[in-house]
């Protein structure tokens, strides 16, 4: 008796599983075709010399050896680390600040939320074009303002010394909106009673923010941190659009993904490009693992 019921349940369960898998098959297929297979292929390509039309010849570790000798790549790595190192903390602090402001009861919050979120839904190519004109040495808005103040105009994105920082401003401006929305959602999940209790005890607004909001929000902050670090390492489109090859600051704004892109699509060195992508992957992986370990110290899940 027991045996038969067991068998029946198993059969029914198998059927349910089957139906379930059937429903997710299209998605699984998609993931396999567009993510898993290319990932494996890319890994394989990094040990090959691959021409424009995907004909691969085995090349051993040579792509990696060339990579370590490539000064331009190291410079790009430096640029990328600088970009991440500055845009992530600044962007996070700014998003947190804006989210805290928009969490208060002020007039027209939905208007401000829309304004701040706008960059996240705007095409990055369009964003880059607009900023390019703002920064333009001869006709730009920024230099018009600078001139109005009686100062001399500057080639903001053509001067190797300032270009990367100007690009970072765009990067931060572009991510604040999205991060702010996530942080805001987190803030609204914090019970009012904590603040009321703190107010009774006489804690100031700033104190409340650091002693209640930040700890209570730490899982959300952690999420935002992880995702911004990853997207920071992958920065490409705005810089690619804003700083052209002819630009005198080209080398000082070049990031890892740009070197990858150039080798893969401009020069047809797909094997070498694959090796660079593995490098980017490894760096992101390492940094994420470190953050995952570090979170135990400061992220509060209660």
């Amino acid at each position, binding site marked *: 008796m027991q045996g038969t019921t067991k068998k029946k349940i198993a059969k029914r369960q198998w059927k349910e599983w089957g*139906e379930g898998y*059937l*429903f997710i*098959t*299209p*998605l699984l*297929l*998609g993931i396999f*075709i*567009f993510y898993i297979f290319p990932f494996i292929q890319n890994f394989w390509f990094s040990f090959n010399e691959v*021409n*424009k*039309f*995907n*004909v691969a010849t085995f090349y051993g570790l040579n792509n990696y050896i060339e990579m370590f000798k490539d000064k331009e790549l190291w410079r790009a790595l430096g640029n990328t680390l600088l970009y991440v190192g500055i845009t992530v903390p600044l962007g996070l602090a700014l998003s947190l600040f804006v989210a805290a402001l928009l969490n208060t009861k002020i007039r027209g919050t939905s208007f401000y939320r829309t304004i701040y979120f706008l960059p996240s839904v705007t095409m990055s190519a369009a964003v880059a074009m607009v900023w*390019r004109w703002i920064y*333009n*040495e*001869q*006709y730009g808005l920024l230099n018009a303002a600078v001139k109005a103040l009686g100062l001399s105009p500057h*080639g903001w*994105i*053509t*001067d190797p010394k300032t270009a990367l920082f100007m690009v970072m401003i765009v990067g931060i401006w572009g991510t604040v909106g999205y991060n702010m929305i996530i942080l805001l959602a987190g803030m609204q999940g914090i019970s009012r009673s904590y603040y009321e209790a703190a107010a009774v005890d006489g804690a100031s607004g700033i104190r409340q923010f650091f002693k209640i909001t930040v700890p209570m929000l730490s899982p959300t902050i952690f999420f935002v941190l992880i995702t911004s670090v990853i997207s920071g390492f992958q920065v490409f489109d705005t810089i*690619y659009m804003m700083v*052209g*090859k*002819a*630009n*005198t600051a*080209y*080398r000082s704004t070049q990031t890892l993904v740009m070197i990858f892109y*150039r080798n893969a*699509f*401009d*020069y*047809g060195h797909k094997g070498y490009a694959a090796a660079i992508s593995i490098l980017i992957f490894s760096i992101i992986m390492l940094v994420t693992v470190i953050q995952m370990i570090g979170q135990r110290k400061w992220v509060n899940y209660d």
Partner: protein
Amino acid sequence: MKKTRGFKVLAMGMAFAMAAMSLTACGGGGSASKGGATTLSFGIWDEKQRPVMESMIQAYEKTHENVKINIQLTPYKGGEYWTKLEAAATGGTAPDVFWLNVLHAEDYYDGGILLDLNDYLKKSDLDLEKNFPEALVKSYNFENKQIAIPKDFDTNALWYNKEIFDKAGVAYPTDDWTYDDLAAACKDLKAAGLDEGVYPFACPIDFQTWYYPTVYANGGWILNADKTETGYTDPKTQGGIQCWIDLLEEGYSPTAAALSETLPDAMFGGGSLAMVLAGSYMTPEYTSNDAINTKINLVEFPEFNGKEPNVINGLGYAVFAGSKNKDAAADFALWLGSEEAMKIQGESGVVISARNDAQKYFADSNKDLNLAAYTNHSSEANPLPVCKSVAEIYDVELEALKAAYSGEKPLADVCEQLKTDADAILAKNKK
């Protein structure tokens, strides 16, 4: 009951899976035969040339009722056209006929995606040697296989803004100007006191339109015949580059950095440059610009070192080797090289038709302009230096020259390092 539910689930799952599959097969070109008619896809990259390509297609379809041709336009900018074409060719869905330029010809031939047109040419009455400039035909011939029909070519000329010259009281440029005349005019214009933000000329770090023509006129070279060495350290090569840096240092041009942000074409179009060098493909852009089109004209590239400097480059029509309708595609590509097609293209005034008997239509397309400045010396023009690593070479060249154009380092020092780097690229890609 149960059975039908199972079937429903299965059917739905299948439908989803098929929808997903069809998504993966989307994009791409390919060709299909429907109801007896052959449909060919035609890959191009220039929006300005779409109308003339369409009228050529109309003319072809009139005499070939069973053929239908669809244009697939992918912008050239940022390498999009080539990226998409490579991916499509690898996946077997490239357009049946597509534009190919000299820069990519060898790579695509090596990749085995171009149809050898020799047999088709033998059967047709299209005589390439007789009707087209030799340099252009040869650019698309590898191991005696003709892999494209020359489409058009471009050369460079000096455009000027009459209004700025009139205001400054300086005489207009002429066809027999030399480089020294150009420099003198720059000096006069500057001395006359131009409006704020207006410059006599522009010297961007531009190879095809600016320094390669003068490098060749000066007896210099970029790439040797067997493509193993570059000529940047040759003083004659450097002389052809230095002449533009000289004008820049005199303050006749916005800085190279400023020009990398706002292209000379845009500055000329905005009336901020008295003179600019421009490829023939810029003609429609200038003539359709209402801000300047009534006050501009052009002359031949100023002579340098007693020679007529120019660089010629061009496009061709290639056929995809994996096309499902090879014969029809080849027939169309060959027709595009015919007198009829080249006339339609030439009369549009958008580009200079490659065919000898159709070059005149370009100059005739606009009687107000001295467009013959582009074609007068086309037979003396040097072809653009190309090899398989050329994209990389152009990039290191551009990067190195930035230091010389900005006055950071002398040109000779820059070229020393540039030659080492460029030769290393040639050696590496050769193996």
